[in-house]
């Protein structure tokens, strides 16, 4: 096990990349701490899988180094890196039995038979396949096959890291939850570094201690689920995390005041006079409907999602969503929205700026 360092890393699938747009992965420095449970979150095509394949050595980066601990493994073969990886779609060796499939990574590394048997039985119990251990893998259902893939990923105890590439896509929802819980308990028990790629925020937030959010080949934020929620470092994080995402409104920022829609809002910190496109962001959970304080709000519809209601509308043509707790009355007299000042984040050109103390 080791800390994984990505230094000055970038990757392009083109032989001679010219503009930044040619890079699937833009230049980054990143450290994955030993024993961390990370989720790598981002929309499809943002470079998550590329990053994962670079760590496991399936793809050689166009530039930069990959370090395991102090060892430079940039040019090392996948096999030499001692990494486990589970892919999005199940990969099983059709002609082998379930047992042989699970034992395969251990047999290739020359472990003794008694150890292999014990370990395979342990993993089989974990993925609930003891009963069909001696059946051929071929002809099993997709989610059974994916459980075998997961099992093969976890069967080695001494791996540097276990990488999961959207492993639960083909698994049915009930089993998804169960397997995720098992992965989590496995992590607690053995302390492997785990990197879990997903585009599902619920999956990311429930699995990981630290979530890495990627957008267009760049890591935009690394933080705990709480940090991602309260202080998104980039407008993409604000919009991508949360349901519905953060409200983002163009505003002029001057010191502790934000001007928009013919009104002035108080901010909790002093932001000076930031340049570029300035926006304020606030979670729908921290917006309240009022009878006249705050900004004029044009309501367009109300969605009842059970635990609460989502009120959708606009402030001067810009979309604003409000989460209204259950039990609170709605009515025509609520014509304005108020923002809690300490919950407002300020963005300049999509990046969050840290205000100074007032």
């Amino acid at each position: 096990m080791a800390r994984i360092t990505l230094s000055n890393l970038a990757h392009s699938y083109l032989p001679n990349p010219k503009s930044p747009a040619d890079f699937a992965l833009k230049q980054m420095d990143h450290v994955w701490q030993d024993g961390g449970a990370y989720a790598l979150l981002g929309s499809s095509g943002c470079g998550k899988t590329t990053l994962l394949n670079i760590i496991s050595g399936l793809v050689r980066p166009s530039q930069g180094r990959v370090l395991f601990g102090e060892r430079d493994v940039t040019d090392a073969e996948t096999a030499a890196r001692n990494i486990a990886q589970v892919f999005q779609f199940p990969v099983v060796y059709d002609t082998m039995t379930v047992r042989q499939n699970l034992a395969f990574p251990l047999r290739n590394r020359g472990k003794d038979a008694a150890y292999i048997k014990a370990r395979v039985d342990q993993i089989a119990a974990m993925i609930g396949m003891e009963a069909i251990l001696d059946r051929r893998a071929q002809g099993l259902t997709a989610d059974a096959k994916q459980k075998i893939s997961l099992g093969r990923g976890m069967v080695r105890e001494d791996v540097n890291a276990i990488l999961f590439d959207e492993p639960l896509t083909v698994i049915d929802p009930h089993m998804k939850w169960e397997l995720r819980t098992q992965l989590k308990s496995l992590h607690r028990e053995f302390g492997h570094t785990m990197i879990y790629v997903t585009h599902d925020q619920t999956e990311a937030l429930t699995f990981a201690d630290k979530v890495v959010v990627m957008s267009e080949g760049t890591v935009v934020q690394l933080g705990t689920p709480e940090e991602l929620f309260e202080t998104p470092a980039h407008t993409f994080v604000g919009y991508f995390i949360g349901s519905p995402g953060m409200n983002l409104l163009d505003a002029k920022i001057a010191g502790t005041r934000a001007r928009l829609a013919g009104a002035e809002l108080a901010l909790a910190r002093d932001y000076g006079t930031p340049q570029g496109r300035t926006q304020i962001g606030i979670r729908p959970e921290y917006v309240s409907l009022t009878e006249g304080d705050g900004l004029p709000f044009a309501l367009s519809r109300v969605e009842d999602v059970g635990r609460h209601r989502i009120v959708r509308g606009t402030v001067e043509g810009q979309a604003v969503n409000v989460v209204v707790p259950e039990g609170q009355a709605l009515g025509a007299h609520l014509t304005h929205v108020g923002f809690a000042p300490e919950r407002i984040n300020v963005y300049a050109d999509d990046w969050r700026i840290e205000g100074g103390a007032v």
Partner: protein
Amino acid sequence: MDKVQNNKAWFLVLPVLVVVAFSAVLPLMTVVNYATNDTFGNNQFFWAGLEWFEEMVTSSRLHDALGRQILFSGIILAIEVPLGIYIALNMPKKGAWASLCLVLMALPLLIPFNVVGTIWQIFGRVDIGLLGRALAAVGVDYNYTNDPVDAWATVIVMDVWHWTSLVALLCYAGLQSIPQAYYQAARIDQASRWAVFRYIELPKMKGVLLIAVLLRFMDSFMIYTEPFVVTGGGPGNATTFLSIDLVKMAVGQFDLGPAAAFSLMYFLVILLVSWVFYTVMTSLDRQEGR
């Protein structure tokens, strides 16, 4: 809901039945006719029963030809199948080189059989052929017209040259259908090159490989044109395979009765082997589906 019984649909099968009757069944029946009768010309036939069959089954001439045939098919399968797999594994997977390789590989398959024979007949000649002259120049005593071993070698190399591409192309198609994730998983699992072949590539190629073996067996078992053009079955009877012997008997000696009996048995052998292959293949498929 009751199913409506309507047997009129059978009439739609009628055209096929008529075509098959004229193209296959009737010609075959004339062969059966020859095989069970004797004639002294004038279109007069005398019932001979199974006499021709008895004669053929006990004929040492036929036994020898059959032995040579089995040896020939065995040798070319033993060379072409592993060689075809090896070539398919080493062909480029994509890009301009892959296209070029495919075209080059397909070329021998497009050449008419008698042209292939002529090419090798000239290629191997000691007086004017490139191969024959070259071998003579380096001191190899090679002459396919009077040395049985040389004749066999020439015929086998010719068949390998002509047909290995078929096996290779079929295997290549099978290999192309393997998703990249399998190879990636194998690298993660630290599988050796042999294990990748044994557990990923071979299982995925199995279907096309069986078809390739079946096609090559049938074709080589019926081979006629190429060896006939090159060696004419000689020297002596050294490369007289079943088809060549059959033609000699039927057209050369005009022994229509024995030749017809011979043809029928020949046909049944090929049918039997193909049926066994088909059964094995489908039962393997059924096992997989379980």
